[in-house]
């Protein structure tokens, strides 16, 4: 089992789009995939099921004694299951503030799951939900849109992820790659991509997700891009990303029981 966290504290960079379509891409390669919607906006839940803020959800897993099995949903994608997220997650920082081991709650809850891949969507912040996601993950995918503001925050974000990894004592947490999303093939887009390529070199995924209206249409239909327009540029990009992530993530990862989560 490999857990992948899709994180960036900047909003609107395509985290949820990447989660939904990466999960669909992995599922179409014959893997079982669990999507964990750790974003209080619940957009991954909506994209995969058409439901908005269902209860119970991940909130109940993190705050109460609800198990993952009790909130496991089938989704519109074959081979993709979901732990839904709801609006109550937005206040979870406060709820968990005084609890010991609050960063490890998700990792503990996911221990023993037998999915081939777990893909975790995170909110645009580095709060307790993102910390839980990082603590539960073996690798991080960082989507980035090619805007000036995204580039400015990138160094800081990678340093923060690194710090969190050390702070939470997760030695095997690693950056799987930086994914360029919403790429526009014009002079500015190519220039900005050039800067990123120079700076991050092999940390960049070879796959680049183009800006494509079909992605938004797919969300509206509550389908993945691989169900809606598999042969379009965005569909092909996410199919390729799934292959690349699989390659970079490697084979079986350290089970949670051997990580610090299990030791607590």
């Amino acid at each position, binding site marked *: 089992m490999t857990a992948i966290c899709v994180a960036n504290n900047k909003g609107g960079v395509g985290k949820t789009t990447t989660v939904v379509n990466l999960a669909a891409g992995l599922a179409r390669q014959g893997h079982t995939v669990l999507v964990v919607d750790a974003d209080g906006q619940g957009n991954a839940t909506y994209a995969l*099921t*058409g*439901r*908005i*803020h*269902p*209860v*119970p959800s991940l909130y*109940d897993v993190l705050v109460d004694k609800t198990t993952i099995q009790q*909130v*496991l*949903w*089938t*989704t*519109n*994608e*074959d081979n993709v299951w979901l732990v839904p997220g709801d*609006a*109550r997650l937005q206040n979870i920082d406060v709820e968990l503030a005084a609890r010991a081991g609050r960063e490890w709650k998700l990792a503990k809850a996911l221990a023993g799951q037998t999915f081939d891949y777990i893909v975790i969507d995170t909110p645009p912040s580095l709060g307790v939900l993102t910390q839980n996601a990082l603590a539960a993950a073996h690798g991080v995918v960082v989507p980035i849109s090619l805007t000036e503001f995204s580039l400015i925050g990138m160094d800081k974000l990678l340093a923060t992820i690194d710090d969190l990894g050390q702070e939470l004592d997760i030695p095997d947490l690693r950056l799987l790659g930086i994914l360029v999303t919403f790429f526009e093939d014009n002079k500015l887009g190519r220039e900005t991509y050039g800067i990123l390529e120079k700076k991050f070199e092999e940390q960049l995924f070879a796959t680049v997700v183009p800006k494509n209206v079909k992605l938004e249409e*797919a969300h*509206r*239909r*509550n*389908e993945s891009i691989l*169900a*809606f327009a598999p042969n379009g540029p965005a569909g092909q990009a996410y199919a390729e990303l799934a292959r690349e992530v699989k390659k970079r993530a490697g084979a079986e990862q350290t089970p949670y029981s051997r990580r610090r989560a299990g030791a607590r």
Partner: protein
Amino acid sequence: MPDDAAPEPHEQHFVRWLRALADAVERDPALAARVQQEAAATPVSDEPALPPDLATLTVPDEPAVPIAPAAPSETLVETVELRTPASEPAEAAITPTLRHTRRSSRYGPPSVTGRAADLGTGIPDPFALYATGGEDGLRRALDTLRIGSLRAIIRAHGIDPQGKLGAGATEKRLMSAIIAAAKRASAPPPRTPRTPRKGTPRTQKAEHK
């Protein structure tokens, strides 16, 4: 309230109050459970009267007014209002719908308002929905879903084993197929007509008499 009449101020206030209550219920599962209990215990009258003085009502910890006529449900808090244009009539605001309401040729994002039908968890089960709500109930539930979810229902419940519904099937067609399948499944098995035995027709009996 007649469809064409503008809502009265006290009705608008009641709707606002209900929305506030729904928000509070959504945030607090314990309150949701209490409201559900209260709704189940309260007899539903044919003509629910509005509370006497709506102006003094606030969202209480314990609901002070009966939550009639809503049917008790397992997931009272499934859907929240995401966006309700201020100009929209109050009645439309509480109508469960996920549809894109087309008022003009200009693009408008879908309004997600009111409570969706109780679809359960995961891929909805149209047969169970038909059993509990009949054709209308199932239709209302399906109406809140988009094409991806309708396709998932068809796939998960084996409604189109021969693959007649191609990639180009519209939402309407998918819905019809689901409803037809639910109807077929709930219909009693056809009775096999008895074949009359030779030599004992009714006419012979009559002749003996």
